[in-house]
C-alpha cells in the first residue's frame, strides 16, 4: 500500500503520475483524453503505469484527481436547470449582477448581458427576513414557501435548487427550514444552501457561489461517484480524492457539498506542483509560469506557500486578453491566486488593419491546431513560429510520437512575413517577441501590480511550450533564475501528490475591536474547528497529526473592504497590527483608526508525505551536444548545439545559446545564459 496516483484530465491529454512512496520513484503516462467518458482514459493510463512498473492495483494507497469538468460545465453552459430561492424582494439580483462591464464592451452599442444561469421564472420569492445581527425580522412564512416551491416544481423542470437568504451567514435557520421543505416535496433534488456552502457576507457573491454549486453539483457528484466505483472495480486500494481550487485536497464528500470548489482544480494543481518543486530545490519565492495552447498563467509562491485569493470570477468574458476586469459570476471560496492571459502555443499571429503584428487571443486550439500539425490549420501560430526559429525539432515533437511538418509552418509564417517585407525567420522572431510581451502581462499582474518586485523571485516554467519562452520572459523582468522541472509537461499531476488534505470554513460576524470580548471570538473559532476536525477525521487523520490554521478578516471602521491576516491563538492585537502593516504595504499609508473584525477563517490541514526524487548522481564532464541545427540566436539563424535533457546531470554547466530537448518539452538557453541540472534534475538557467 505505498503507491500514490495523480490524475489530471486536460482538454487534449490526460496525465497520470505514479509515485512509489517507499523509494520516491516517479513514473508518468500521457494518454489522449476521452471526452465522452473521461474515466476511460484515466483507467487506461493507470493500467499502463501499473503494468509498466510491475505493481498491482491494491498496492495503490492514494488517488488524487484534478478535473476541468466543473469549469467546462459553466463555460459551456451545460449544467442542469437550477431554481433559485431567495428573500422576497430580491429575486433579481442575479440578473442585475454587479453592473460591471469589461473594457472591450465599453464602446459596444450592441452589448448585452449574459443570459442569467437562472431565469426569473425559476426564482422563488420567500417571505422571511433575517437582520444583520442574525435576529429574525420577519419569520419564515412556511405555508407561503411550501406553496411557492410546489408551484415551481410542478411548473418547471428543475434538477437542483440554490437557497440563499439575506444575512443567512449570521443565522441559517430559515435556509435550513426551506431545505427541509424541499426535501419533503421532492427528496431526490440536489439542494445547495448558502449558509452551508460558504457562509460569508455580501449577498451577490454568496448567491452566485450557491447557484454555481447547484448548477454543477449533480453532474460533478455523478461523475466522481462513477470514477470512484470504477477504481473500486479495478481493485484500486484507495478512495478518490479531489484537488480543490485552494490547492488543498478535498474528499468526495466535501465536493458533493461544495462542488464549486472544483472550478480551479487543474490550475491549482499546477501551482502546488511549482511550490513543491521549488521547496525540493530550496527555492521558497517563485513565480509559476504555465504556457498552454490558448492561455498562459502565472501564480505566486512566497515563503513556500501558494498565494490564496478569497474571491474569483467564473463564466465571464476575458477582457483585453487579461481576465482582470472582473466580469462573470463572483465566487467566494479560497482559490489559488492566478493571472491568465490569452496567449499560448496555439495563438494565431496576424497583421491588423493598421499593419501591426498581433498575436492572439484567437487560438487554433488543438483542432485544427497550428499549421505544422497538418490538420487543416493554415494560419501561423506561436508553435509554427517556434518551429521556423529552429527552437522546436520537427522530428522529436512529443518525443517523436507526433509528426509535425516544418514546411507547413514555414509557408504559414512566410505569408505573414511577406507584407511586412521580412524573411519568414524575421517574422517568426517578431511573433516570438510579441507573444512574450503579451505573456509578460500575467507575470506582471501577480507581482508588480501587487507591489511585489519580481527580481527577488525565481521563474518556474511548466507546460510543454514554456521552456522555449521562459528565459526571454525572465530577461523582461530582470529575473536572474529560471527553473524548468523534469517532466514539465506533467507538472500539474505531480502537484496532486505534493498537496495536503485541507478543509476550509468561514463565518461572518462584525465585532468592534474596541471593547471586544475575546472569548466570543474564540468561541466562533472553536465551533468552526470542531466541524473541520470532524470532517478531516473522516479522511483518516487523527487529532495529533492535523494542523489548525486561523485567519481573520479585518477592516477599518466604515471602510468597504477587509484584508485577511493570520491569527495566532486568539491574539487579536497582534492580528490588528499585522492588518495595519499589510494595509500600509498595499496602500502606502499607515492608519491607526480603530478596526472591526469581520470574517473568521479556519483551515485544517492533514499532512500527506511529499514525493522527493532527488538523486545523488553527479557528472564530471559536461554532456556532448547530440547535434547542431540552425536556430534564431542574436538576430540571425546560426548553428546551435542541441542536447538531450537526460544527458545533463548535476555538476557541469553548459553555456547558451543551446537547445535542450526531452520527450515532453524543449528548453531554449539564450546566448549569455548558462544551464545546469540540480539534484531533482530540474534545469536551472542563469544569465551571465
Amino acid at each position, binding site marked *: 500500500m505505498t503507491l500514490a496516483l495523480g490524475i489530471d484530465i486536460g482538454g487534449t491529454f490526460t496525465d497520470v503520475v505514479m509515485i512509489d512512496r517507499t523509494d520516491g520513484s516517479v513514473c508518468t503516462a500521457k494518454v489522449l483524453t476521452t471526452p465522452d467518458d473521461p474515466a476511460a482514459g484515466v483507467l487506461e493510463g493507470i493500467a499502463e503505469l501499473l503494468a509498466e512498473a510491475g505493481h498491482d492495483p491494491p498496492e495503490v494507497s492514494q488517488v488524487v484527481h484534478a478535473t476541468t469538468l466543473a469549469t467546462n460545465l459553466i463555460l459551456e453552459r451545460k449544467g442542469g436547470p437550477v431554481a433559485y430561492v431567495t428573500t422576497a424582494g430580491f429575486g433579481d439580483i442575479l440578473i442585475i449582477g*454587479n453592473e*460591471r462591464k469589461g473594457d472591450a464592451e465599453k464602446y459596444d452599442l450592441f*452589448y448585452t448581458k449574459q443570459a442569467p444561469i437562472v431565469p426569473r421564472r425559476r426564482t422563488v420569492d420567500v417571505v422571511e427576513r433575517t437582520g444583520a445581527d442574525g435576529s429574525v425580522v420577519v419569520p419564515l412564512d412556511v405555508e407561503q414557501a411550501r406553496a411557492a416551491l410546489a408551484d415551481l416544481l410542478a411548473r418547471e423542470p428543475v434538477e437542483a435548487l440554490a437557497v440563499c437568504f439575506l444575512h443567512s451567514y449570521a443565522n441559517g435557520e430559515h435556509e435550513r427550514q426551506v431545505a427541509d421543505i424541499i426535501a419533503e416535496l421532492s427528496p431526490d433534488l440536489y439542494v445547495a444552501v448558502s449558509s452551508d456552502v460558504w457562509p460569508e457576507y455580501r449577498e451577490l457573491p454568496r448567491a452566485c457561489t450557491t447557484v454555481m454549486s447547484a448548477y454543477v453539483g449533480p453532474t460533478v457528484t455523478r461523475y466522481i461517484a462513477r470514477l470512484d466505483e470504477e477504481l473500486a472495480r479495478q481493485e484500486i486500494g484507495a478512495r478518490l480524492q479531489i484537488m480543490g481550487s485552494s490547492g488543498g485536497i478535498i474528499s468526495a464528500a466535501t465536493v458533493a457539498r461544495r462542488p464549486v470548489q472544483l472550478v480551479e482544480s487543474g490550475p491549482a494543481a499546477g501551482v502546488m506542483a511549482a511550490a513543491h518543486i521549488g521547496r525540493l530545490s530550496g527555492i521558497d519565492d517563485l513565480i509559476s509560469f504555465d504556457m498552454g495552447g490558448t492561455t498562459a498563467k502565472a501564480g505566486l509562491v512566497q515563503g513556500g506557500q501558494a498565494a490564496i485569493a478569497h474571491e474569483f470570477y467564473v463564466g465571464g468574458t476575458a477582457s483585453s486578453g487579461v481576465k482582470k476586469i472582473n466580469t462573470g459570476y463572483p465566487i467566494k471560496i479560497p482559490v489559488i491566486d492566478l493571472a491568465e492571459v490569452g496567449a499560448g502555443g496555439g495563438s494565431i499571429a496576424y497583421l491588423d488593419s493598421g499593419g501591426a503584428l498581433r498575436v492572439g487571443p484567437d487560438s487554433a486550439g488543438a483542432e485544427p491546431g497550428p499549421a505544422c500539425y497538418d490538420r487543416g490549420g493554415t494560419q501561423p501560430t506561436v508553435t509554427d513560429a517556434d518551429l521556423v526559429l529552429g527552437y522546436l525539432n520537427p522530428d522529436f515533437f512529443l518525443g517523436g510520437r507526433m509528426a509535425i511538418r516544418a514546411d507547413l509552418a514555414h509557408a504559414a509564417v512566410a505569408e505573414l512575413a511577406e507584407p511586412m517585407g521580412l524573411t519568414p525567420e524575421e517574422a517568426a522572431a517578431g511573433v516570438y517577441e510579441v507573444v512574450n510581451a503579451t505573456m509578460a502581462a500575467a507575470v506582471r499582474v501577480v507581482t508588480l501590480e501587487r507591489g511585489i518586485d519580481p527580481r527577488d523571485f525565481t521563474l518556474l516554467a511548466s507546460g510543454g511550450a514554456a521552456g522555449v519562452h521562459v528565459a526571454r520572459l525572465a530577461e523582461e523582468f530582470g529575473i536572474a533564475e529560471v527553473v524548468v522541472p523534469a517532466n514539465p509537461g506533467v507538472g500539474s499531476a505531480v502537484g496532486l501528490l505534493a498537496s495536503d488534505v485541507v478543509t476550509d470554513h468561514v463565518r461572518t460576524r462584525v465585532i468592534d475591536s474596541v471593547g471586544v470580548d475575546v472569548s466570543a471570538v474564540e468561541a466562533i473559532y472553536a465551533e468552526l474547528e470542531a466541524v473541520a476536525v470532524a470532517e478531516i477525521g473522516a479522511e483518516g487523520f487523527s487529532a495529533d497529526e492535523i494542523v489548525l490554521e486561523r485567519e481573520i478578516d479585518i477592516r477599518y471602521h466604515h471602510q468597504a473592504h477587509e484584508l485577511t491576516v493570520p491569527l495566532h491563538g486568539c491574539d487579536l492585537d497582534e492580528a490588528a497590527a499585522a492588518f495595519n502593516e499589510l494595509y500600509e504595504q498595499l496602500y502606502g499609508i499607515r492608519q491607526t483608526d480603530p478596526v472591526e473584525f469581520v470574517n473568521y477563517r479556519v483551515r485544517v490541514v492533514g499532512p500527506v508525505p511529499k514525493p522527493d526524487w532527488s538523486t545523488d548522481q553527479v557528472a564530471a564532464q559536461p554532456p556532448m551536444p547530440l547535434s547542431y541545427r540552425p536556430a534564431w540566436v542574436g538576430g540571425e539563424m546560426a548553428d546551435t548545439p542541441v542536447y538531450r535533457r537526460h544527458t545533463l546531470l548535476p555538476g557541469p554547466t553548459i553555456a547558451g545559446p543551446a537547445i535542450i530537448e526531452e520527450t515532453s518539452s524543449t528548453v531554449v538557453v539564450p546566448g549569455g545564459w548558462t544551464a545546469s541540472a540540480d539534484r531533482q534534475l530540474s534545469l536551472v538557467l542563469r544569465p551571465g
Partner: protein
Amino acid sequence: MDRAPSTTDARPFDPIALEVVKNALGAIAEEMGLTTVRSAYSSVVKEGGDSTAAIFDHRGQFIAQSMGAPLMHLSSLRPSLRSLLDDFPPSGMADGDVYASNDPYRGGIHSNDVMVFRPVFINDTLAFFTCALLHVADLGGMAAGGLPANATEMFQEGLVLPPVPLAVAGEPNQPILDVIAANSRTPEKVLGDIRAMMAATNLGADRLADLADRYGLERLHQITDELLDYTERRTRAGIEALADGTYTGSFIIDDDGVNPDADHEVHVALTIKGSTITADFEGTSPQAPGPINAAVSQTTSGVLFAVRCLLAPDIPVNDGAFRPLELRLPPGTLVNPNPPAALNARMATVMAVVEAMLGAFSELDPARAVAASCNVHVYIMNGTGGDGRPWAFMDPQFGGSGARSDRDGVDVTGPLVLGAGGAFHTVEAYEQEHPVRFERFELWTDSGGPGQWRGGTGARRDIRILADGQFTGRATDRCRRPPPGIYGGSAGAGGGWVLNEGTPDEQTLPAKVTAYPLRAGDMITMLTSAGGGFGDPFERDPELVAADVRDGRVSPEAARRDYGVVIHPETGEVDPAATAVLRSK
C-alpha cells in the same frame, strides 16, 4: 484638431517594435495607475478606481494610459498639458519638476479632479511627460466633497489651480502645497492624494528611462510616432467606411440643479467627409445657471466616446485617435461655457452629447440607432447614531439602457459612456454598518420603454431608515423628461424618489433634494430611469412579450395595453386570437 509635425522617419515602419512598445508603455501606465490607487487617500479612488495615469511624449502628444482610464480623464489631460506648456515652456523645465492644475477653463474638469504632470528627462533631454489625475477628497467650495447640485459659479466648487509647480528640481514647493491644504476640509487627505500622484509620475519616469535604455531615445520616439500614426490610420480607415454626409441629433436635459423646470438642449450636426468627422454644436442652449455645464474637455470626451462606438474596439486610445476629429463648440453654451459657470454636474451634458451623437448616427445608419438610456442616480443617507457618532453612506445606482435596432436594451446597467465603475455595494454590507433595512431591489416592472425592441428596465430599490436622519438625492436628469424612444418606440420610465409609497403620507420628492429630514420608519423608494423603446411595440414578437411577462419585466396589463398582446392568465402563453383582435385595431 491640430497635430504635431511628424518626424522624418529614416527607418521603415516596424510592425513588431510597434506592438512590443505599445505593450510596454501600457504596462508602465498601468503600474503608475496602481501606484496612485494604492497610495491615494480618497475613498472614491480606492473603491471606485476613479483615477487615471497617462504618458505623453516630449511634444505633448498623448501616447499611453492605464487600463480602464475613462475618456473623460484622458480628454482633460491633453489640453491641460498644453496649458501647462504655455505657462512654463519646456526650455525652462528641469529634471525633478512636478506641476499640478485643475482649471476647468484651461483643460480641466472641475476642481476636485486634480492633475499632476512631471517632465521626464533622459540624458538631459526632455523626453516624456508622466501624468496622473484623480478625484481628490475635498478642495473646499460650498459642499464637502465638491459636488454642490445648486452651485452657480465655479468658485463655489472648490479651489481653482492654474498650472503651478508642486516641486522644483526635486524640492517640494511648500507655499503652493500650503495653499492647497489651507483650502481643504480634509488637508491630510488632499496632500496624501497629491503625493500619491507625484509618486506615480516619478515611478513612470524611472520605467521610461529603462525603456529608453533598451531602444535608444531617438528610436523610441520614432516608434511612439509610429504608434500615433498607426492609431490615426486605423481611426481614419474606420471613418472612411462611413457614408459621407451631415447628420443631426439633439437631446434635452430636464433639470439644471437650480431650475428644476428648465429645459436645456444639446444639438449636434455631425459631418462625415472622407476620413474626418466634424461635430458642430451650433444650436446648443446657452450655458445653464446650475452646474450641468461641461468643460470643453468633457464635451470632447463625449464626442470621442460616441465616435469610438463606430470603430474597431481594439484601436488604441492616444493622440492619433483625436486627429481626425474637429469640434465646433459655440462659446457660452452648455458644451463650451464661459467662466465662471459651474460644472460639477457635467454628466448631464456629457451624456446629452453622447445621446445627440447617437441620434446623428441613427440618421447615418438606422441599424446603429439606439434609443435613449438612463443616467446615474445616487443618494446619501446620514444621521447621528445612538453613540453620538455621525453615520452616512452613498449608494449610486443605474437604470436601463436604450433598445437597439435588433435587440432589447440592457436592464439595470451603467449607461454606455460610464461603463459603470467598480463600486460594488451590497445590501448586507450597508445593513451591518447603518440603521437601514432594504426591502426590495428588483427590476422595475413596466419601466422599460415599449417598442418592437424594449428598453432596458430601471431598478426599484426600497430603503427603510430605522433611526431619524436625512436624505440627499441626486437623479442626474431623465426624471421629468424620461429617456425617449425611437422609430415609434415609447419612452422608458423617468426616475425619481418616492417617500412612504402606498401610505397616506406618500410623497414624491424632487429629483435633486438636499438634506430632507426623515423619521425612523420612513421608507425611500428609489426608481432609476429606464431605456427608451425601438420601433412600434405592436410589432414586437408576442412570444418575447410573453417571456417578459413570465420574467416580471412586463405586467399582463401592460402587455395588453402597450403591446396588444393577450397573455393567458393560467398558462402564461400568448392568446393568439385575442392578440390578433387587439393588434388589428
